[in-house]
């Protein structure tokens, strides 16, 4: 039996970020924090994609989490970053628990479009909601951590460190989940749902659980991004945002819980470099990258690492 290296890789990556992040310029710390947050959303998409389902509406929970995190700051005066993320996660989890009863009944394009429809409903509601700032959104209260507001230069590092720790814990949690009997059912549902049912499993229940996990992580990520940027607006729930998550998921592959973070960082690099070099045609570069990945690495970037790890293991 091969040894499971994933927890080691996650913890080693955390150590590298905590130490290396210290030396990064402020702008890079910020970009890395956003990349990790988006990786957290994609981490939630990973088990869902293993069942063969693609959600084009995870921006719903990403945005809801951001608004929930922002709201606890404004309404209750809570500025603790971890509590804001907790609020975002709870909001995402509760809504997905409700919507999951409907969505878990659908497969293929119907699942994808129905999830997209829900995210666009939230977008419509937020745009029309004057009290939530309509299209402008609103500013988030400056975050604290355990009651302390970091000094100017430490703000971005603190944010990065929190993001890295949360992402590592989430990665370990999802990895653990995928190894449980319920998690093992995901690829079986993709391959042959009827057989799963005839073996006594409930595909609908498994998908519902996975959907709630994904939404909770997306909610936490939304709150993190809201706090990092200091501002939230309805664009966070727009369908292009959901598309970006799917883009990263395809770029990364679903082979490991490390892949979403790797994919998200690479996406951030491609996006930033392409935008810097060619502000008007950066989408062309992104599109070409995705095309090349689909053609030459159909199971995503992680397949490169997966092969090497398997060869060693």
């Amino acid at each position: 039996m091969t040894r499971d290296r994933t927890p080691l890789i996650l913890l080693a990556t955390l150590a590298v970020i905590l130490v290396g992040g210290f030396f990064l310029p402020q702008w890079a710390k910020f970009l890395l924090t956003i990349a990790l947050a988006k990786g957290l959303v994609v981490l939630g998409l990973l088990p869902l994609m293993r069942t063969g389902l693609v959600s084009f509406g995870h921006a719903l929970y990403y945005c809801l989490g951001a608004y929930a995190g922002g709201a606890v700051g404004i309404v209750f005066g809570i500025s603790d970053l971890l509590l804001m993320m907790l609020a975002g996660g709870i909001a995402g989890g509760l809504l997905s628990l409700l919507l999951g009863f409907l969505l878990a009944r659908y497969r293929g394009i119907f699942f994808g479009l129905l999830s997209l429809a829900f995210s666009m409903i939230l977008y419509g509601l937020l745009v029309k909601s004057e009290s939530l700032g309509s299209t402008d959104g609103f500013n988030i209260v400056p975050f604290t951590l355990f009651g302390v507001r970091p000094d100017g230069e430490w703000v971005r590092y603190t944010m990065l460190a929190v993001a890295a720790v949360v992402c590592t814990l989430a990665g370990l949690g999802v990895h653990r989940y995928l190894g449980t009997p319920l998690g093992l059912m995901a690829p079986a549902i993709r391959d042959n749902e009827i057989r799963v049912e005839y073996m006594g499993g409930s595909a609908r229940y498994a998908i519902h659980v996975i959907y709630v996990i994904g939404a909770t992580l997306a909610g936490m990520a939304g709150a993190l991004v809201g706090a990092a940027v200091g501002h939230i607006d309805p664009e966070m729930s727009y369908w292009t945002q959901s598309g970006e998550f799917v883009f990263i998921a395809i770029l990364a592959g679903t082979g490991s819980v490390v892949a979403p973070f790797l994919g998200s960082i690479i996406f951030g690099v491609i996006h930033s470099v392409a935008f810097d070099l060619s502000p008007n045609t950066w989408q062309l570069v992104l599109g070409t990258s995705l095309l090349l990945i689909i053609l030459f690495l159909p199971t995503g970037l992680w397949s490169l690492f997966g092969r090497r790890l398997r060869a060693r293991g």
Partner: protein
Amino acid sequence: MAGASNQLILEATGLNKSFGAVTAARDINISIERDSFVGLIGTNGAGKTTFINMVTGYLKPDTGTIVYDGRDITQLQPRDITHLGICRSFQIPQLYNSLTVFENMMIGLAVVVHRAGRGGFFSRGEPVVPGREKPLHAVAEEILASFELTSYRGRSAQVLPGGVRKLLDIAMTLVAAPKILLLDEPTSGVSAEEKFGIMEMVMKAVRDAGATVLFVEHDMEVVSRFSQRVIAFADGRVICDAPPEVALVDPEVLRYVVGGHRAQG
């Protein structure tokens, strides 16, 4: 006819099923005794698979009831029926094609473990399979070995030869420790040389598991050798229900089911 009612494990009474103008089951009344091996025969479209589909919950009968071990299961979902102890294999093997042979077995066992409330997120160590009280991996290896599939354990299910696919499909039904096993044409698509070998292996494994078996079969040699009782279907009806030595020479069975085979062979 069946013995005392406590010996009966399955009782189907007055089953009728139509698909539009086509009647697939007409007043089916079948009682199955515990630990028996029953062959279901009939031409294509005679109603055998419809009967299996009704027993396993894939189809709901228009009228009639199915009672398993004293409990009405007519309206239950397939997974609930499986959980009670009725499992099935398929005429066309239903495997998880992107996974290996070993992973196929593990998925089945994972479902069993999950239904038993074991192997949760916070559980420590490898979950133990209920009934067998051994870890998941050990049970998977054991079942693979009993079907002589160990040498295929790392191969993708998609590229397996027909006979091995069939065996894996049947082996997967045993993970849930079935009390009744319904095998839909266990030797279809298998070469003539392999047929008896496969059936011997399957019957041994099933006997060890202590399951009652109903198997659909077109090969009358297989039926006469491996069944204690034969139920013949024609046009959605049961036309004969008797031991093989009686059923296979019954005039109606000869006319509707095996006549062609005997005449040729």
